[in-house]
């Protein structure tokens, strides 16, 4: 990453959060996506850390701002979820307990997050299939039931990481475009310029069914 984040004019700034139990690989998923890096000596995340990447979706340049956080159950800082348009919910396929806890995380997300937040369930560490405790099918079924997107990834082997983030960001983009189209027809324009957080204030129910990608 150069200093280009300061220069390039982006069409959109999307904020997304990554959550899940301790040690499921949240930080490495983010660093794989934003810097193509994987650290074997990665440390527990403290507080809030950030990753960002500029990507092109359709014909728009999007700055994805990814918020990383500590996995241990902690007090919710409302600022963590504030303005987040997407959430990546991560578990580790080699530890059943991290999958069981997904329910808790989802609950928290639905309580504190925006109701139109795009949520993708990510089953990480697919490279460790010899010690697998959660079958792919289980993740898929759960995601379908909850209306989430689903993907198995390996941050270590760089499998599906980019795809998972891109899917989330593309859906956010489509919702936003549709939303701003509606707004154009109905009056006041949303301010979607660089440097501003975008809040989807109203329901985007029309697009909600369309965006469910676990079909």
């Amino acid at each position, binding site marked *: 990453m150069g200093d280009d984040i300061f220069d390039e004019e982006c069409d959109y700034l999307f904020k997304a959060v990554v959550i899940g139990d301790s040690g499921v690989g949240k930080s490495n998923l983010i660093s794989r996506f934003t810097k193509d890096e994987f650290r074997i000596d990665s440390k527990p*995340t*403290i507080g809030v850390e950030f990753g*960002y990447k500029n990507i092109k979706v359709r014909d728009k340049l999007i700055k994805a701002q990814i918020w990383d956080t*500590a996995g*241990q159950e902690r007090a919710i*800082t409302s600022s963590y979820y504030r303005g987040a348009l997407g959430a990546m919910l991560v578990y580790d396929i080699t530890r059943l307990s991290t999958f069981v806890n997904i329910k808790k995380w989802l609950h928290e997300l639905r309580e504190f997050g925006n109701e139109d937040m795009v949520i993708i369930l990510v089953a990480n560490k697919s490279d460790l299939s010899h010690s697998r405790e959660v079958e792919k099918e289980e993740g898929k079924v759960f995601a379908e039931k909850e209306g989430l997107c689903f993907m198995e990834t390996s941050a270590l082997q760089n499998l599906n990481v980019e795809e998972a983030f891109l899917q989330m960001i593309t859906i956010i983009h489509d919702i936003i475009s549709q939303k701003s189209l509606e707004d154009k027809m109905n009056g006041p324009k949303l301010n979607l310029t660089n440097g501003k957080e975008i809040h989807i204030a109203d329901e985007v129910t029309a697009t909600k069914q369309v965006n469910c990608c676990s079909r």
Partner: protein
Amino acid sequence: MIGCGGLWSVLMKRSGTRELNDFYPIRPECQADVPTTRFKPRYGKTLSERRWQASFDEEGRLDIAKVLRRIQRGGVHPSIKGVVMEFLLGCYDPNSTFDERNELKQRRRGQYDMWKAECQKIAPVLGSGKFVTTPLLNEDGQPTDPSLVTVTNPDKKVAQWLQLLHQIGLDVVRTDRSLVFYEDEGNQAKLWDVLSIYAWLDNDIGYVQGMNDICSPLVILIENEADCYWCFDRAMRRMRENFRCTASSMGVQSQLGTLSQIIKTVDPKLHHHLEDLDGGEYLFAFRMLMVLFRREFSFADTLYLWELMWGMEYNPNIFTRYEDPERAKTKGVTPAANDKVLKQYGKFERKYLKAGHTEENSALAVFLVASVLETKNKRILTEAKGVDDVVKILGDITSSLDAKKACDEALKLQKRYLLKTTKKA
């Protein structure tokens, strides 16, 4: 270890990074990934082992003023970092004798053994040289593996504690793993034991991520596990409020509030800019305060920074305050005017004393973050368009920040802040 001054001075001059690597060896495959160390022991500035030994009188009373002067100038030589740290954190009274300290140490070791036995009764893995990374209780609060947990239907306190143990384990395996020291499972288990026993005794805090980063250096520096525990306990006395979690906030947010107050006072323009970026809560400084800059510095530089900070924050009443809080209260505030007494305080603490502040003071760490923000003031004002940019700009300090300079800047900022706030009052 080092007997004569001549040899010492040669060693001091020749040493530096190479010698530090002998003290805290880094795994070869991680060399490229760790920040470079800037700290070098300096002859005439760094507190040497010889000078340390010479600062005790015959019975063992320590001339703390003399020692503090050195520490605040050039840190502590790696060969004595552990013992010096114990004094700086208030484990011992500098005015006590060798015999008194020895007696206290033995008593504390006995106490630690008792606590450890208490914990072992519930979770026998503790103290075995091994540790756990998978949950010990299932969703219904029952033990997942009867060989690991001896009780059925644990009560609330026991259950709460058992639920923390795998979390501690997950963090232990990810703590300072670039250091050769933690390749040894026994050393990892030592860190796990200390954190687990602390969690057992401090129910309010238990274990919160980040405590591993504070504890790890002490585990490396202090060989005896019980002594290490007590030193960690004293370190936590300073920092535990940061780790307090309630339903709606983290304790460290109170320090973030102070930080915001300081910046607002000394640099309102920067404060408003940060507020505009939605960074008014100063969350980007969360980690620096929680783990005292461990992620911004190399291992050796963190130790250097901590020595400087704890030296500057030193208060001669600290031992009594921890050991006998009631007596510390009745003892009251030391009459400050006495120059000899003042020298027993660190520079930072002394300024508060002179300004007449007697209540709980803000930590030096907060001023340190503020001074770092100040040095990046221009870039933040012109380049930062979001909190993530602020983090990126601050991230650059990793390779460039000098612990000593940073502390000196923090002291200047404290002076400015005290001047402005006392004027107002």
